[in-house]
């Protein structure tokens, strides 16, 4: 059989060479009937040979081409350039089919659909679509990949009539891609073992373009000699599905979990279908004339699956628990100094770490997800206000935790509205100021350490600190004699009840001010900064943590209680003598020649027992300054899984959460920003 196929393959590639030769000549001499004849003959040979040697796809495809050239022979159709193009591409296509080892079947299928459409267009255009001699032939050709589950349980006597059950499995394997699971559990002990009786049985997962009858055909001689179950799992290739491997793991004597395979396959096929539909819609839009067949480039596998977000939440929760438990194990192993235990613990830690990172990355969504919406917003709003505005998104592939994406959407929308409404000037104003008529808004996202920075920049009028200050005084937000730097003045926009818009428009004048933006961003542990220069534009920068659930922290102690300070806010750490702190004036300390304000948490927390002789002062970033926070000592870096505080403590602003340490004790996570805010207020009063 194989020899025959090889023979045919050689023959077929010769035929294709001849075909290309004939086509090249035909291109010069489009009406030459001899050339048309020889092309027809080549098609005919390919079709016949294909059918004879198991290349049914080639046979049915060439059938169509043969029809087309037959019409030319009968002078019902004229050779056209498109027809030649199609035939050239068909030569490539047939070569693809001949060389297909099963891996590219999907692409080939796609190519074929494109080509078929073009052939149909030619036939249709001349009202020959119905001349397709046997149309049922081509309709039966819509074979796609299907996946079957096959259970083969031979009766003990199967070998007695000369059947070798291995050949059955071999034949199944020959039909497509397979996974074969083998069951040995029925093999009797030695005394009861009958030579030549069959005790083992199999399960096969098969992906093939053949239909169920072809699978049944394998067992045609042995229908009465074994128990056979054939079940179609799905109309798709399960082997390319992401996440399928563990389900196709062949563990001898353990059956495949069909339900799981089916569920996964259904989920993925549904996703694929949706994709294909939208692709088809796009293709339909972009006029079918431009379609080109693709010579396969690479295996296109399914790039993602849709999972209910609750499941992800559960996963993240479990991972959190795992990390906590892991920390406990680490501690225990360290205490026990057992080499084997240490080794296992380290291995496990490595795995948990990877699991954590992978699970974590699952929850990430690219900012691009929002950008689409923003583009639309900018387009619609700029029309509404009669301004010409370009919107550019840079770094849209930057990924953020899904909860952050949800949380950041509204603030960003508001910032964009502000830019469109107040920031960017009208075309006339812009031209008068010597700027291009079209304004520009750039949304830029990038990673910065453990943070994600999202900056919205416009090249509009910028903010006028004097105007802002005047407004703030008018509204009674600041005393009329307040001395403010320009930056401080601009920061006034974050105060509740502030709005500089001269006229309230229905775009940004919705009662939502920058104060709300700020609050919303800080709800997800982010910060907002604004910088603006008059006449040149404004940039609003949002900094967000990468994730909400796990933070890299510094574990510190104050009077035997553990606290965690996020690493992202820590600038430097100095060790200082307790006396130096006591001796400092107005909570300002001089370190290495610089003056730093600091907060002495022992005092702030109202702890009265004696402090250690040497304490640590942690410089944390606060807006654009550095402020010290004094703790007793530093335990070390710690990966903290954040847990929300209980109801009773929820109003404790300065703690953003808690984390359970390996030994089971609780460490509170300090929100240094709020620590500073709160104690500043407290001290000022």
């Amino acid at each position, binding site marked *: *059989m194989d*020899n*025959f196929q090889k023979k045919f393959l050689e023959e077929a590639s010769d035929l294709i060479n001849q075909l290309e030769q004939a086509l090249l000549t035909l291109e010069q001499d489009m009406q030459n009937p001899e050339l048309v004849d020889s092309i027809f003959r080549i098609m005919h040979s390919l079709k016949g040979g294909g059918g*004879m*040697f*198991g290349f049914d796809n080639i046979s049915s495809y060439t059938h169509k081409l043969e029809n087309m050239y037959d019409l030319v022979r009968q002078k019902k159709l004229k050779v056209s350039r498109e027809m030649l193009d199609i035939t050239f591409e068909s030569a490539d296509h047939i070569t693809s089919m001949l060389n297909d080892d099963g891996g590219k079947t999907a692409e080939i299928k796609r190519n074929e659909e494109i080509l078929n459409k073009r052939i149909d267009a030619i036939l249709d255009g001349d009202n020959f679509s119905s001349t397709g001699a046997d149309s049922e032939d081509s309709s039966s050709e819509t074979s796609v990949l299907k996946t079957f589950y096959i259970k083969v349980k031979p009766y003990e006597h199967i*070998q*007695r*009539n*000369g*059947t*070798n059950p291995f*050949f059955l499995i*071999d*034949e199944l394997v020959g039909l497509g891609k397979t996974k074969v699971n083998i069951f040995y559990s029925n093999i009797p002990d030695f005394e009861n073992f009958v030579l*030549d009786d069959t005790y083992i049985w199999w399960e096969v997962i098969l992906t093939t373009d053949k239909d169920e009858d072809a699978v049944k055909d*394998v067992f*045609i*001689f042995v229908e*009465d000699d074994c128990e056979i179950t054939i079940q179609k799992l799905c109309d798709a290739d399960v082997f390319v599905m992401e996440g399928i491997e563990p389900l196709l793991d062949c563990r001898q004597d353990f059956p495949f979990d069909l339900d799981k395979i089916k569920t996964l396959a259904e989920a993925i096929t549904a996703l694929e279908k949706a994709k294909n539909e939208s692709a088809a819609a796009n293709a339909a839009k972009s006029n079918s004339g431009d379609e080109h067949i693709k010579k396969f480039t690479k295996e296109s596998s399914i790039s993602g699956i849709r999972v209910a977000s609750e499941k992800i939440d559960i996963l993240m929760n479990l991972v959190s628990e795992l990390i906590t438990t892991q920390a406990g194990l680490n501690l225990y192993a360290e205490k026990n100094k057992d080499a084997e235990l240490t080794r296992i613990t380290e291995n496990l830690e490595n795995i948990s770490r990877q699991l954590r990172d992978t699970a974590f990355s699952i929850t990430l969504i690219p900012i691009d997800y929002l950008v689409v919406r923003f583009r639309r917003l900018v387009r619609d709003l700029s029309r509404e206000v009669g301004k010409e505005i370009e919107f550019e998104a840079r770094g849209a592939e930057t990924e953020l935790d899904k909860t952050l994406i949800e949380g950041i959407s509204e603030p960003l929308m508001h910032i964009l509205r502000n830019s469109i409404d107040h920031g960017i000037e009208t075309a006339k104003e812009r031209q008068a100021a010597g700027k291009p008529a079209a304004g520009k808004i750039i949304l830029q996202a990038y990673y910065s350490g453990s943070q994600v920075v999202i900056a919205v920049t416009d090249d509009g009028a910028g903010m006028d600190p004097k105007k802002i200050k005047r407004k703030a005084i008018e509204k009674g937000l600041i005393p009329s004699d307040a001395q403010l730097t320009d930056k401080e003045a601009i920061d006034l926009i974050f105060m509740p009840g502030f709005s500089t818009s001269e006229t309230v428009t229905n775009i940004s004048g919705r009662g939502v001010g920058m104060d709300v933006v700020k609050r919303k961003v800080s709800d997800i542990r982010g910060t907002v900064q604004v910088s603006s220069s008059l006449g040149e534009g404004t940039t609003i920068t949002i900094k967000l943590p990468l994730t909400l659930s796990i933070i890299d922290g510094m574990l510190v102690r104050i009077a035997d209680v553990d606290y965690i300070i996020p690493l992202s806010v820590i600038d430097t750490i100095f060790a200082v003598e307790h006396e130096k702190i006591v001796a400092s004036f107005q909570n300002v300390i001089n370190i290495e020649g610089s003056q730093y304000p600091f907060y002495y948490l022992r005092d702030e927390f109202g702890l009265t027992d004696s402090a250690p002789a040497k304490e640590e002062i942690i410089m944390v970033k606060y807006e654009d300054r550095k402020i010290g926070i004094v703790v007793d000592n530093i335990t070390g870096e710690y990966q903290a899984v954040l847990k929300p505080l209980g109801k009773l403590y929820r109003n404790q602003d300065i703690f953003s959460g808690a984390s359970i340490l390996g030994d089971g004790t609780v460490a509170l996570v300090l929100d240094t920003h709020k620590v500073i805010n709160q104690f500043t207020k407290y001290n000022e009063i």
Partner: protein
Amino acid sequence: MAKTILIVDDSESIREVVNFTLQNAGFEVFAAGNGIEAQKFLDGRTIDLVITDLHMPEMDGIGLIKYIRATAGYSRVPILFLTTESQLAKKIEAKDAGATGWIIKPFVPAKLLAAISKVIR
């Protein structure tokens, strides 16, 4: 080494077609005109596959199948029999006698080879 096949049929043209097809496919082919001839041929010789017609003079296909199954050294040799679509009863009889599979007449070379590939490799 090439696999050996014994074709048993009283029709010379069938023997020739099968012989030609199988030799082209790389098998070593022997032919016998009926069951008795086949018996004589076998007589201790190793063979990988027997293809037999069912209707033959002297000893018919069923008899041959039974003989082969009952003979030491041949009990596991795959046997394919030639039949026509209409002979369902015969098919069951031959299967019960110990045949491995069948080939439906008339057949094209590809069909013949496909059936053979199901029982020997």
